[in-house]
């Protein structure tokens, strides 16, 4: 989590930066209409980080193409001249996946904002990659349809970025991730070739490249068009809120409700610090005296939802829920969700900075992981608030800190790293939905052994042998892992406390 991997860079010419920049400007000017490039210091400034602002780099230049052919021309030129290219959507990513390359081009897809076709009869929308996630559902709503994945940043994040990260959201337990809701994408390869992946049908010939592209963090190709599936809005949606006296009881209730055969559309858990912060921020009516809160949303036909709300209520009561409340109307339901969706900024008000972790764990390990985090929180004197996509085990601990205190960012990163490695140790993963980017590149060395990492690099090489697309992200080089000083943890073979610190 320290310096960016430099071993896998495409550009190794050692050419002075100004000279390289000028060469890019000259080369691309010949291919593109005027006004699509930004190269002055002031213009480049807004692009120097994505949502992970702790990492900043200034690209050589920013290019904002308007057509697929321009994207192809840029990539072809970059390949011929061995200049790295980092694609960027809205820049809301939380792992530094769109962190620019100092000797590279930042390829901004912000001008691709058209919904090309929305077909309610056939249940799809064909959109450009810069269309915002929520804009798709907004456009589909008059037809009684919506696009299911709903990451918390859905108001700003774009569908191209969602594909690159395989974004989730609060409803993916029932409705799946981006990969489950995209039918087809069009990409441009580093060779400048335009390729359609997937189909308007349920599968396509050859390998499942559509699955491979999802979550590939802009390392294999650049997405220039996306065909998404639209789902009918459920006729009935109800939200059940349950308060608990302990996080363990709440965690246990999650398992019990699933064991009862109920698959909620959303199932979210918040601990006390997150509840208090969200309530102060959104005034949504959360019980601030609860140790833990479950938001359990059920949707479907009214008959079904009524039955399931009753069953879920019984389960929660049996699991020691201290209070149950069903949102009285749509207004209250949305308000209760607003509290959850604004949990990050809400917690952000409690301290000058916060650091968001994105590990996923088997749900059975929840209380063990929470207990250990609370011990470390005391040890590091850094408060942690927890929001948790409980249904699918995706944990978002938010570490509160003050970057103005010397050394506190480093201690925060160290604590974050410890938590991620604990997630791996209990059988989970270092990232559930935010991606590896530059942030978790070191932890990848622990989750994957050398052979698996080399296989990843081989996959990358099949698409981009010169490693020009988003170099240094997502998959660490072996050299990087040696520097990281970590070793692969086979389940339980290496007790966690003996791991080196990072």
């Amino acid at each position, binding site marked *: 989590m320290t310096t960016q991997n430099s071993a896998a860079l495409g550009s190794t010419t050692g050419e002075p930066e100004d000279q390289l920049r000028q060469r890019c400007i000259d080369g691309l000017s010949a291919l593109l209409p005027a006004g699509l490039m930004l190269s002055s210091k002031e213009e480049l400034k807004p692009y120097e980080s994505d949502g992970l602002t702790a990492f900043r780099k200034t690209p050589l230049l920013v290019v904002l193409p308007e057509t697929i052919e321009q994207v192809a021309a840029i990539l072809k030129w970059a390949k011929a001249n061995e200049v790295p290219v980092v694609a960027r959507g809205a820049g809301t990513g939380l792992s530094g996946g769109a962190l620019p390359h100092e000797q590279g081009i930042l390829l901004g897809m912000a001008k691709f904002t058209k919904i090309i076709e929305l077909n309610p009869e056939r249940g799809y929308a064909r959109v450009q990659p810069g269309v915002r996630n929520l804009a798709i559902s907004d456009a589909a709503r008059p037809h009684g349809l919506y696009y299911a994945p709903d990451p918390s940043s859905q108001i700003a994040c774009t569908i191209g970025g969602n594909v690159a*990260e395989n974004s989730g959201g609060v409803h993916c337990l029932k409705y799946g991730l981006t990969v489950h809701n995209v039918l087809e994408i069009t990409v441009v390869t580093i060779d400048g070739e335009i390729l359609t992946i997937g189909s308007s*049908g349920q599968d396509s010939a050859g390998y499942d490249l559509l699955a491979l592209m999802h979550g590939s963090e802009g390392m294999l190709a650049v997405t220039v068009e996306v065909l998404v599936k639209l789902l009918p809005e459920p006729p009935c949606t109800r939200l059940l809120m349950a308060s608990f006296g302990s996080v363990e009881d709440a965690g246990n209730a999650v398992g019990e409700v699933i064991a009862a055969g109920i*698959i909620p559309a959303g199932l979210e858990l918040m601990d006390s610090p997150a509840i208090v912060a969200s309530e102060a921020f959104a005034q949504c009516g959360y019980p601030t005296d609860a140790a833990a809160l479950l938001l359990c949303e059920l949707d479907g036909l009214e*008959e*079904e939802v009524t039955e399931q709300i009753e069953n879920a209520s019984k389960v929660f009561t049996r699991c020691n829920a201290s209070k149950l409340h069903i949102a009285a109307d749509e207004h209250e339901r949305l308000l209760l969700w607003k509290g959850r969706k604004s949990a990050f900024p809400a917690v952000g008000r409690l301290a000058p900075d916060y650091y968001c972790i994105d590990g*996923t764990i*088997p749900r059975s390990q929840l209380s063990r992981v929470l207990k250990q985090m609370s011990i470390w929180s005391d040890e590091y004197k850094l408060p942690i608030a927890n929001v948790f996509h409980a249904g699918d085990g995706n944990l978002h601990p938010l570490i509160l800190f003050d970057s103005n205190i010397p050394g506190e960012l480093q201690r925060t990163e160290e604590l974050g790293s410890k938590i991620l490695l604990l997630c791996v140790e209990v059988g989970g993963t270092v990232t559930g939905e935010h991606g590896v980017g530059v942030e978790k590149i070191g932890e990848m060395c622990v989750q*994957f052994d050398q052979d698996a990492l080399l296989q990843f690099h081989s996959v990358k090489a099949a698409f981009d042998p010169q490693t020009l697309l988003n170099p240094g992200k997502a998959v660490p080089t072996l050299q990087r892992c040696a520097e990281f000083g970590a070793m692969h943890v086979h389940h339980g073979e290496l007790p966690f406390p003996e791991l080196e610190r990072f």
Partner: protein
Amino acid sequence: MNNNDDTAALQHAVQQAVDTSSAINIQGGGSKSFLGKGSAATTVSTLNHTGIVSYEPTELVVSVRAGTLLSELTKELAANGQSLPFEPPQHKGATIGGVLACGLSGPARPFTGSARDYVLGVRMLNGQAQHLRFGGDVMKNVAGYDVSRLQIGAYGSLGLLLDASMKVLPVPQHELTLVSTRSTTDDYSYVSGLARRALPVTAAAVQGKTQYIRLSGTTQAVRAAANQLEGDVDADADAFWPGLRDQSLAFFNTDKTLWRISVAEYAEALPLSGDWLFDWAGAQRWLCTDETPEAVFAAAAAAGGHAIRYGIDESAARFQPLSGTAQRLQKRLRDSFDADRLFNPGQFHPEFDSDSSIDQEQASS
């Protein structure tokens, strides 16, 4: 259920293939010979690699060894009120490894998702006999490329699957089938719109003039939905779905050539002669025909889809041929896992195993 970890022996077998540069066919239950086989002289069987590695019903995740019989896994899940939501075909003797390698999903697919949708992680051997693990036992995981889902439907050409972790779901409380008669044959216009209705439909098919719709969910929801849809409840029709899933209906017993054509459910009728059966709400079309493979592939491609020939005849083409960038990239991808092309040579898209087609491609571009 037998519980035996045969990883060491399988790794040894692949290592031997590497050492002797001799290709191998990977085989599970051998139940899907109608989907072809590799041309290697040696067969490596996964049948001794069996058993459930872990299964925690409240986590909705099962991890199972490739050689485990699908029938046994299904039984174990059912004992806990759960199932594989992609409704895999239960060909006699089928293993879970074979089902995943062929990427097969049953009638529920357009409504509940496909085999690859439910795969969370795999352990596998690549063409260097390296033992690799991708994904895991958790539902959300974006660490590294999604190599697990890439294996599904790759017919073993990217590696030997050892174990797979899959998401499972509760078996619906209640299920019923609605049957109705359309006024014309092969009219899938009604079923093709069902995915846009917020109803608990889990299968929809048309054979001749008969339309079948399956509803699954809570008793109340299924009853309410039945009132909103065409057709009468027909308990005898419940047996239609397993027959469709396993291609054991009389329709599939043909002297002609059987094709599976995958297109958008709303795609217009394809200009091919023969007998049709429409599954997946119209998105998976079965065709018994005397048309040539070229004609079938051309019609499928024109409709934006692809075709696969079912049948043991190894002399004719089976998979929709790929060309251009798609072929070149996928061939490179195969080589990135299995550079010496040891696994199932010639079975899946023979063009991936041929150097000449690529050379021509590059020469012409």
